Every structure is written in structure tokens, then in C-alpha cells.
């Protein structure tokens, strides 16, 4: 079976580099080009030292992009939507890792991204790229918009509860804790090592744009409200979403297990992690680094109707490039785990 020709537009950032790593080792992929305006002509390992001697590939300019079967877009926010028409000429299938096509509503995009959408008519062409929610649509899709990392963790923590209408729709509080790689490789005052190391930084107590995706995916046709905050920690990779929901009925933990098992029992990348002993009793992002797993757990509060639902991912894997490769596998009927078998490291 001929390999699928694949290129990456915008390959010098962290997401592009992680995607490049995965695609270089994917048995069904023939990697053609990786573009970077800033580093055109340079070897890719200059941005991605882990790929030194793994590939001799050099960055191309976007203008020199040739046709291929599938084009991954890891361009800065806004570039995908502005360049979509010309990019569509290069590949029949596009997987966009930016935020440009995640929201179905143009008004929602303008509210959360602070400017009007450049091509709202294309919004409905893109399928929102969380396979655990949209597997069948993704199989048939030509355009997929890969979800945000914080949104992915929050959605997967809460999906079984919202789908089965078990929680009050306006009381959920979500606290996401994440790492420095979420900010990408552009440097700033705030990312300078002496300022960034070991912080517990309330960088988005409110107004985090990933809320819009969570509301979109969990509303199931009803108006819902998410109270969302993000705190940045001293880690590089990893997201932990701690979600506080309020159950409509008095359910026991056994009932909650049943709901999560019902939704996630057959999922290759979701593990339910809730144990009474050991140092890893609930989902822990540290041991997921480099893997495509989303670990999900929960604890019922004996004192109230509150249920604490917890999810952990690697923001660059299940939160970005890993999930994009999962989408690629779905689009072509490959086993969904192809090229995504790495289980993570311990200790790390």
C-alpha cells in the first residue's frame, strides 16, 4: 500500500516539532516538506535537537510548498484561516492545529480571539478533532481542527457526566494546571528562566479562550456555563484539569465508575485511574510525557453533591500533535494507535 505523502506548514515550533517526530516514525507516512519562514534552508534539528541525525530534512518556505495528500497546519493563530484558500490547493486533506477553526460560531471566535474570523464560511467544513467525541465524523472528514490542550483535558474529564446529563449545567468550576511548553518557543520576560522556574502563576484566572471549545462540545444543545481558571506551574509538559461538578442526583462512586466505563471502556487512549494505594492514585501528567494517553479519575465528596473529576494529558501529545496523528489515522482507516504506541517514561 503506497505511503501517504504528508507535509507540515509551520514546523519550527514545539507542536510542529512533536508532529515531525511522530510522522518521521509513522509506518504509513512519507514526509515531504516542513516549512518555516524564519528558518528556511536550515536543518530541522536546529529547532528540534532531539531529531539530530534522525533526519537530514531542511525547512522549506511556505511559497515552495508542493502538493501532498495531507497537510498539517501548525501556523501561528490566524495564519490558517487567512491562507486557507491557497493551502487547500496543496492538499485534499488538512489537519489544523491552530485555534482558527475550532469554534463553529463566527461570533464566538470574534469574542474569544478578539478579531473577526477571516473566512467564517469555512467554519462548518472542519470537524472538531477529539476522536473520543467525533470518531465517525472524523473518519469521513477532509478538514479537521485539532482541539486545544486545556480544552481536550477538560472535555475528556467531563464528557461522560455531561453526555448523561448527570450534573448541574451552570455550577462547574474548572482549574487547569499547565506547563511552560503551552506558551510555545517564543521568548518573553515572563518565560525568562529566573522568572519562570517553579512558579505557581495565576496567568488566566478568567477569560481563558479554551472555555469556548468546552462549552461548545459539552452543551448537547442546552445552555451551559463553565467557570474556568488556568494556573501555570514549573513543569514543561503536562496538563492536569481538576473539575468541580455538582451532581443532580446522589450517586455513589460505583455509579460514576459505570458511567466512565460505559463511555471510555473501549477507548485505546483513555485510562480510568482511581486507586486507593501507591504514589499514582489519580491521573498524573508527569508519567504521560511523550505518550498520547489521557488518564481520567474522580472522587465523590462525601460532604456535598460535588464530584471532583480529574484528567491528565501531555499538552504536546494528546493536547496537540498526538491527537492530530490520531485524527490522521482515523482519516485513512489506519489502526488509531499507529505511530502512537510510546507508553511514557518512569521515572522521569
Amino acid at each position, binding site marked *: 500500500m503506497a505511503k501517504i505523502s504528508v507535509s507540515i506548514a509551520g514546523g519550527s515550533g514545539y507542536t510542529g516539532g512533536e508532529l515531525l517526530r511522530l510522522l518521521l516514525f509513522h509506518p504509513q507516512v512519507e514526509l515531504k516538506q516542513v516549512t518555516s519562514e524564519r528558518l528556511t534552508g536550515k536543518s530541522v534539528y536546529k529547532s528540534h535537537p532531539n531529531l539530530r541525525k534522525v533526519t537530514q530534512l531542511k525547512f522549506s518556505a511556505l511559497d515552495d510548498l508542493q502538493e501532498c495528500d495531507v497537510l498539517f497546519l501548525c501556523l501561528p493563530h490566524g495564519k490558517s484561516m487567512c491562507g486557507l484558500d491557497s493551502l487547500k490547493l496543496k492538499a485534499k486533506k488538512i489537519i489544523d492545529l491552530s485555534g482558527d477553526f475550532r469554534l463553529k460560531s463566527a461570533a464566538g471566535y470574534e469574542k474569544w480571539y478578539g478579531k473577526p474570523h477571516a473566512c467564517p464560511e469555512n467554519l462548518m467544513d472542519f470537524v472538531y478533532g477529539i476522536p473520543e467525541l467525533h470518531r465517525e465524523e472524523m473518519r469521513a472528514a477532509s478538514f479537521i481542527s485539532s482541539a486545544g490542550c486545556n480544552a481536550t483535558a477538560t472535555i475528556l474529564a467531563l464528557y461522560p457526566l455531561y453526555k448523561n446529563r448527570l450534573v448541574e449545567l451552570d455550577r462547574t468550576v474548572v482549574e487547569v494546571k499547565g506547563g511552560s511548553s503551552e506558551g510555545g518557543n517564543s521568548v518573553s520576560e515572563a518565560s525568562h528562566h529566573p522568572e519562570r522556574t517553579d512558579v505557581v502563576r495565576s496567568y488566566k484566572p478568567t477569560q481563558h479562550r479554551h472555555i469556548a471549545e468546552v462549552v461548545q462540545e459539552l452543551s448537547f444543545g442546552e445552555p451551559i456555563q463553565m467557570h474556568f481558571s488556568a494556573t501555570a506551574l514549573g513543569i514543561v509538559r503536562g496538563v492536569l484539569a481538576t473539575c468541580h461538578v455538582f451532581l443532580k442526583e446522589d450517586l455513589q*462512586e*460505583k455509579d460514576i*465508575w*459505570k458511567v466512565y*466505563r460505559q463511555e471510555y471502556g473501549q477507548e485505546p487512549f483513555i485510562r*480510568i485511574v*482511581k*486507586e*486507593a*494505594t*501507591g*504514589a499514582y492514585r489519580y491521573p498524573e501528567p508527569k508519567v504521560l510525557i511523550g505518550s498520547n494517553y489521557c488518564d481520567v479519575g474522580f472522587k465523590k465528596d462525601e460532604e456535598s453533591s460535588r464530584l471532583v473529576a480529574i484528567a491528565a494529558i501531555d499538552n504536546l501529545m494528546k493536547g496537540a500533535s498526538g491527537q492530530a496523528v490520531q485524527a490522521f489515522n482515523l482519516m485513512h482507516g489506519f489502526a488509531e494507535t499507529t505511530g502512537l504506541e510510546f507508553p511514557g517514561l518512569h521515572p522521569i
Partner: protein
Amino acid sequence: MSASANLECPICGGEVTLGGDTLQGELIECSDCGTELEVTSIKPFAVAEAPQEEEDWGE
């Protein structure tokens, strides 16, 4: 030797399979929630959470 049986884990409701040769008092793990279960009877099969010494989790 009695036939194997599928029981429900008392903690998480997951499926626990006991082989026909399972012994009274044997310790087994629930593969879903990792809880250590003790076989409290074999005719009929029954399991209960095995006594755990409370680990100091350091926090």
C-alpha cells in the same frame, strides 16, 4: 474444582474473574481499580476488599 466465575468488584463494579482453582483467602487484584480483594468464600464465590494498612502518602 468449580467452574470459573465473573464477579463484580465491590469497589468499582468492574468485572473480576475467578478461576476454578481459586482458593479461600486468596488475594487478587481488580484489573480496573487495582484494589486488592480477598476471596471470602468459594462456594459460592465471594470477594471483599482486603484489609489495607493505611499508607502515609507524605503530604
